[in-house]
């Protein structure tokens, strides 16, 4: 049995999405050109039309992914029951993380695997790249705790090999990709597959077992990616993201899967790789020159997926695989920090896109990744060019001919510009409405509290994302400009925890956005007052940026953003919490006695 999509269907899906997106982009550009050139064609009109084409194409491309996802949705395949005959290493790379919480995740997944009676097929390797010596010492102590908790001494006494490994690299060469590569070069020959996780990943045992069975059944499958659900969010921002990821992402992922076929994605974690395939095709070189464009490849996952496909292996995302979880950023600042890293990584792909032998679709995926970070720049340019065009528009000439008796009114093409604006708004909202309708018809909506609660969730998420989007746009624009100026963002450790921000932290992060907001409104008022109505939805959130950053980091207790994982806690997450609570008790008691 294979779950690969037929090649003809994949090509059809790609062609359909591409043609419709280009068609909508071209239509919007033509409309806008008619509007812009109504008072006579100027160079800036051509620039604006080109920008409308790019931005509309990009939005339409996103919308088409959801449409294809809905069209290609089908019942999940029956789970395999073939015996597991292989050995898998579950890799947990860590980098300056909270060791107790991370190691409790390992214990929770081990409990789940043991319950299925599959423990002998799975080992765990904690691969530390922690550079902070204090955290590294904590990791060692927590590993001893994990070792005792998992009764590894007893296992050794019974003559069985240990199933838990810990290794720390004192120099994190190649970052996460280098960390994984080091594992393969040291121990890879012992395993058939490796499940690559992140420090905040959790995966249910039935999902892991199903992935291994699919890999066993399909010898050409090199990498199988799951769609991780965001869980554990507590803030307003985090829960809105969690809702959006849970409600919309499965459909978008289904659409991607329909178009990608066997040239699918790797998102860096919660994915199973065939060790032999990965080892023979994924050792990344350092790019020549200094960062940000040279040096180690930051967004290694996209490149590894492309290299696997280049070597003839299938790379696939199976959106039907549930039971795959991760945590997300709890506030806008943490989101922006992560985005800065991704931005540099994706822009670095400019150096990779021409690598020899890559499949055409892999190149397109890399191009998409680059465009996703450059697109905000196009929006900023579009805004600026409109302000310029309005401010420099010639005065209407009602009597163009000498001795003309009756005035000639210039053709009013404003309705066409309004149509484009409505169309752009529609491309943003239309996929979400379609997904809501589909979820209602299929009954998926019940996992989100029913149709009304899901509708309220959708509307609130739409409102929040329209407030957040201009602020994100500014951060992304700054990130792109920093990278283009050659500034390396480094490799900051991810922040975890509740993420609530103080007003002063929010102001420190958002004051410059606020100044831009004030400047945009004042400039529009002074030079293009009739555009003010159109600019305010962007300008007002910018002016309020510090307040928005602060408020959205606050805890959310609303039931509006209910997700399936909140209403019914998945077993592996419940296990993680139980183990955390147990460990907190066993570790706190002696410490308390010692302090007496």
């Amino acid at each position, binding site marked *: 049995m294979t779950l690969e999509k037929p090649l003809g269907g994949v090509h059809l899906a790609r062609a359909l999405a591409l043609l419709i997106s280009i068609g909508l982009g071209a239509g919007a550009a033509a409309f806008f050109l008619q509007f812009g050139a109504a008072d006579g064609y100027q160079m800036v009109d051509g620039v604006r039309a080109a920008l409308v084409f790019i931005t509309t194409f990009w939005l339409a491309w996103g919308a088409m992914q959801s449409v294809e996802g809905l069209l290609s949705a089908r019942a999940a395949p029956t789970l395999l029951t073939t015996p597991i005959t292989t050995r898998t290493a579950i890799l947990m790379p860590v980098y300056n993380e*909270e060791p*107790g*919480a991370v190691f409790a995740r390992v214990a929770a997944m081990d409990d789940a695997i043991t319950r299925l009676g599959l423990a002998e097929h799975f080992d765990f*390797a904690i691969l530390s790249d922690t550079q902070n010596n204090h955290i590294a010492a*904590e990791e*060692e*102590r927590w*590993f*001893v*705790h994990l*070792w*005792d908790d998992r009764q590894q001494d007893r296992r*050794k006494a019974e003559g069985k*090999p*240990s199933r*838990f*490994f*810990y*290794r720390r690299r004192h120099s994190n060469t190649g970052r996460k990709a280098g960390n994984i590569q080091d*594992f*393969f*070069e*040291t*121990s*890879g*020959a*012992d395993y058939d597959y490796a499940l690559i996780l992140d420090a905040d990943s959790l995966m249910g045992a039935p999902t892991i077992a199903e992935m291994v069975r699919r890999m066993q059944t399909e010898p050409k499958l090199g990498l199988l990616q799951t769609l991780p659900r965001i869980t554990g969010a507590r803030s307003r921002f985090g829960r809105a993201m969690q809702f959006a990821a849970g409600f919309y992402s499965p459909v978008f992922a289904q659409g991607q899967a329909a178009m990608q076929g066997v040239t699918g994605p790797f998102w860096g974690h919660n994915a199973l790789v065939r*060790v032999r395939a990965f*080892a*023979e095709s*994924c*050792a*990344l*070189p350092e*790019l*020549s*020159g*200094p960062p940000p*464009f*040279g040096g180690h490849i930051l967004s290694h996952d996209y490149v590894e997926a492309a290299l696997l496909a280049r070597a003839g292996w299938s790379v696939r995302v199976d959106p039907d695989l549930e039971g795959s979880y991760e945590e997300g950023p709890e506030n806008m600042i943490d989101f922006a920090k992560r985005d800065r890293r991704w931005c540099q990584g994706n822009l670095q792909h*400019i*150096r*990779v*896109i*021409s*690598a*020899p032998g890559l499949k055409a679709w892999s*190149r397109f995926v890399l191009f998409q990744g680059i465009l996703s970070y450059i697109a905000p720049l196009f929006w900023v340019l579009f805004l600026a060019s409109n302000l310029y065009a309005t401010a420099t528009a010639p005065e209407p000439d009602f009597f163009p001919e000498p001795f003309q008796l009756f005035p000639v009114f210039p053709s009013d093409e404003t309705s066409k510009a309004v149509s484009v604006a409505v169309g752009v708004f529609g491309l943003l909202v239309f996929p979400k409405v379609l997904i809501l309708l589909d979820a209602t018809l299929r009954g998926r909506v019940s996992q989100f509290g029913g149709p009304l609660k899901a509708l309220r969730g959708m509307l609130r998420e739409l409102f929040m994302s329209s407030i957040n989007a201009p602020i994100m746009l500014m951060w992304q624009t700054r990130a792109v400009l920093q990278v283009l100026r*050659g500034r390396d963002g480094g490799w900051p450790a991810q922040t*975890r*925890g509740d993420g609530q921000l103080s007003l002063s932290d929010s102001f420190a992060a958002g004051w410059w956005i606020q100044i831009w907001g004030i400047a945009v409104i004042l400039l529009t008022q002074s030079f293009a007052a009739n555009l003010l109505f159109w600019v305010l939805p962007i300008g007002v959130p910018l002016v309020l940026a510090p307040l928005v950053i602060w408020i959205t980091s606050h805890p959310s207790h609303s039931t509006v953003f209910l997700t399936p994982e909140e209403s019914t806690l998945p077993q592996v997450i419940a296990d993680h*919490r139980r183990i*955390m609570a147990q*460990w*907190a008790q*066993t*570790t*706190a008691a*002696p*410490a308390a006695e010692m302090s007496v």
Partner: protein
Amino acid sequence: MDARMMTPNSLSFVLDAAEQDARKHAILREAALPTAPLPMPRQVIEVPNAGLVDATTGGLFRLLTLLAQGFGRTARDR
């Protein structure tokens, strides 16, 4: 629940600091990654212009390659 937990001290009842340290090192030795090396050949991503852009290379690919490599050189010169 707060993810932050205290450092485990469960062995402190029975072992003194030196013994704890010795046991920790013994466990870390036991837990070292198994030795089963698998070679990973370094992949080729960047190739010299002459080797990549030849007469058989398609137009669009040729343009993209030159753009990308030109950009790369600019970045390297920085």
